[in-house]
C-alpha cells in the first residue's frame, strides 16, 4: 500500500527525522489559512499517489497566503494521470544548498534490507541508477542486527558529505531505518534530503510503501489507504477476498491460483486474444465468491467472452459450477462463456453446467482457442 507524502513525512518526523512544518488542506480556504500561519513563501504540493506531479503542474510556489489559496484552488481542481487531487500539502519554502537521496528498500535477492544514498538527489533516482549506478552507494542491513552506526558513517563518507553534517545525517538515517522497520515498509524514501542554506538537513519529500501482508498490525496506516489508486472493481474484489486486476483486453478470465491465472492470460494472448483481467478466486472458493467474481468481470464492458479455468484441488468443481449458475440468475448477459473444469469434482461440475448453454473445453489450449473465437464472434 502506498502512503501519501504528508503521511510518510509525519511518520519520519515521529522517528526524529526533521521535516518542514507544513500541514495538509482539502480546500483553498484551509490552504490559505495554513500559509498565513506559516508566514512567508510556501510550496503547495498535490497529494496524489503517482510520480511526475511536478511536471504536471501539481507543485506551485506561493509568495503569500493569497497566492497559496489560488495555487491550492488550481491544484485541487486537477487530475494527475487520471487521479483526482483531493488534498494539498502546504510546506514552508526552503533555500536549498544541496540535495541528497536516501532510501531503504527490500533486496529480495539478498533477503535483506538495503539502504541507498546518493549525492545526486532531487531527481528521478531510477534514472540515476540506470545511467550512473556508481553514484548510488548501497549497504545491506542485517535484519537481526539493524542498521549499524558505522554503516551510516560509511554512507556519509561515500557521498562526500561534509563533516559538519555527519551528526544530523546520522539522526536522519537512523530515524528513517526505524520508520522503515517499525512500519513494515517495503520502501521508505527521502528524495530530496535537503541541506538548506542555513546548514540544516530537512526531508522535504517522503514516500513510503507498506507491506500489505503486515497491515494487520498497522490499523493506523490501513486507515490512510487511498482507494483512488485502485479501480472500483479492484476495491470490490478485495472486499470479496478476490484478487482482480483490470487489463485492456476483451476476454475475461476467472482462474483459481495466481500462477495459473497468469498462465491463462498468457495462453489467451498466444492464440491471438487479449485478456481483460487477472482474477484469482483463491483456494476453496465457494459459490458466493464465484458469483461475486463473475459480476466483477462482467462490469467491464470491453469483455466479449469469459473463460473459466478451474483446476480443482482445494477448490471443488461443483461449487464453482453452482456459483456460475447463481451469478447467471442475477445477471442477464449474452456474453459467451467457455468453461474448463479439471480435478476435484470436475465431472459433477460439468453435469451441473450441461444445460446452461456454455462452451466446454478439455485442455487449456482448447479452452483458450474457443474463448478467442467466441470473443471474435460476438464483436
Amino acid at each position, binding site marked *: 500500500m502506498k502512503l501519501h507524502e504528508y503521511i510518510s513525512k509525519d511518520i519520519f518526523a515521529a522517528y526524529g527525522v526533521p521535516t518542514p512544518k507544513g500541514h495538509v488542506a482539502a480546500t483553498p480556504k484551509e490552504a490559505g489559512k495554513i500559509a498565513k500561519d506559516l508566514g512567508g513563501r510556501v510550496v503547495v504540493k498535490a497529494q496524489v499517489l503517482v510520480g511526475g506531479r511536478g511536471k504536471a503542474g501539481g507543485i506551485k510556489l506561493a509568495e503569500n497566503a493569497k497566492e497559496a489559496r489560488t495555487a491550492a484552488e488550481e491544484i485541487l481542481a486537477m487530475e494527475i494521470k487520471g487521479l483526482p487531487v483531493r488534498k494539498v500539502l502546504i510546506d514552508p519554502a526552503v533555500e536549498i544548498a544541496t540535495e541528497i537521496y536516501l532510501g531503504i528498500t527490500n533486496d*529480495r*535477492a539478498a533477503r535483506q534490507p538495503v539502504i541507498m544514498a546518493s549525492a545526486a538527489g532531487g531527481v528521478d533516482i531510477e534514472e540515476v541508477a540506470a545511467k550512473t549506478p556508481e553514484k548510488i552507494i548501497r549497504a545491506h542491513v542485517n535484519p537481526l542486527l539493524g542498521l549499524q552506526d558505522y554503516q551510516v558513517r560509511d554512507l556519509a563518507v561515500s557521498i562526500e558529505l561534509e563533516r559538519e553534517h555527519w551528526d544530523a545525517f546520522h539522526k536522519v538515517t537512523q530515524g528513517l531505518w526505524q520508520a522503515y522497520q517499525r512500519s513494515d515498509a517495503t520502501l521508505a524514501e527521502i528524495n530530496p534530503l535537503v541541506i538548506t542554506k542555513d546548514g540544516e538537513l530537512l526531508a522535504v519529500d517522503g514516500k513510503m510503501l507498506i507491506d500489505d501482508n503486515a497491515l494487520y498490525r498497522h490499523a493506523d496506516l490501513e486507515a490512510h489507504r487511498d482507494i483512488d489508486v485502485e479501480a472500483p472493481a479492484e476495491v470490490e474484489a478485495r472486499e470479496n477476498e478476490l484478487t482482480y486486476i483490470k487489463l485492456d483486453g476483451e476476454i475475461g478470465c476467472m482462474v483459481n*491460483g495466481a500462477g495459473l491465472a*497468469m498462465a491463462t492470460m498468457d495462453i489467451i*494472448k498466444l492464440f491471438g486474444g487479449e485478456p481483460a483481467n487477472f482474477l484469482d478466486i483463491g*483456494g476453496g472458493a465457494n459459490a458466493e465468491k464465484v458469483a461475486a467474481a463473475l459480476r466483477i468481470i462482467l462490469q467491464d464492458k470491453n469483455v466479449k467472452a469469459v473463460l473459466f479455468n478451474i483446476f480443482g484441488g482445494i477448490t471443488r468443481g461443483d461449487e464453482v459450477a453452482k456459483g456460475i449458475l447463481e451469478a447467471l440468475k442475477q445477471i442477464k448477459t449474452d456474453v459467451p462463456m467457455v468453461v474448463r473444469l479439471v480435478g*476435484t469434482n470436475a465431472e459433477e461440475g460439468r453435469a451441473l453446467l450441461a444445460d446452461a448453454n456454455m462452451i466446454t473445453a478439455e485442455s487449456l489450449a482448447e479452452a483458450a482457442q474457443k474463448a478467442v473465437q467466441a470473443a471474435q464472434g460476438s464483436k
Partner: protein
Amino acid sequence: MAILANKDTRVVVQGITGREGSFHSQLMLDYGTKVVAGMRPGKGGEWVLDGKVPVFDSVKVAVEATGADTSMIIVPAVAAPDSILEAADAGVRLIICLTEGVPIQDMMRVRAYLDFKQVTLIGPNCPGLLTPSQTKIGFIPGNISMPGNVGVVSRSGTLTYEVLNALKQEGMGCSTCVGIGGDPVKGISFIEVLQMFEDDPLTDQVVMIGEIGGTDEEKAAEYINEKMTKPVVGFIAGKTAPPGKRMGHAGAIVEGGAGTAKDKVEALKKAGVQVADHPEQIPEMLKK
C-alpha cells in the same frame, strides 16, 4: 529414491486442529504420509483424525515423543514466523510452511536466523511437496501424478497441478514435485532444488516453472548452464502481466523494469533450457 521426503519421512503438523489443517492432514494420511504428530498449544494430550494422531503442546515435545523429522506448518500468517522458528529449534531437518501472507520483514529475520541452523525451509506460501506413491506433504493433490523420472520444481500452486496432470495424461510420472512458493523472501530456491535433482539417481529430466518478479529464474539459468547435465524444460508465467502490479503472489511483480517474463525466458533459453509457450507443451518437449 526421491529428494527431500520419502515414505519414511515422519511429519508433525503445526496447526493440525484448524479447519484447513485437519482437512489436509486427513488427505495426507489417506495418501500414506506418515503423519505422526500434530501440534497446537493448549491441546496437548488430545488425539485427532479418528484418534490416529496425537497432539502435543510444543514441537519439541512432539519430536521427542514421535521422532518426527519434518514439520508442516498450516497456521494463520500472524503465527507463521514463530512456528517456523519453533520447528527449527525443535530439531526437525525439514520445514514446509504452507501459510500465505507472511510479512516480508518477518521472513527476512527468520531467514537470517535459519542460516545458523541445520534445517531446510520450503515456503512460505507454497503448495508443499509430493513424492508420488510415497508421501505428500501439503496441498498437491495425490491423484494427479504418478511415480516417474521427471523432477518438478515450481513457484506456483495450481499451475504446478496443471503440469503434473499434463504429464500424467501422457503417461509420464514424477520423482518429486517441490512447490517452493510465491513469496519474495522464502526458504529453498530453484538452484538448491535443481542441485538435488541433478544428484538424484532416479531423476532423469527436470521441469522448472517460474513466474515474473525477482531474479531467481535468471540465477537458476546460470546454474543450469554451468552445472547441470540433465535436460531441463522451463515455463514462465506472466508474459502479459503489466509492470508495477502485483499478480496475486507477493513476489510476482515487475519492479523497476526487472523481473519480466521476457528476460527470464531469454536467460533460460541461453542456458540451453527448452521453454514451453504453454503448460500443455511440456510433456512433448520432455519426450524429445
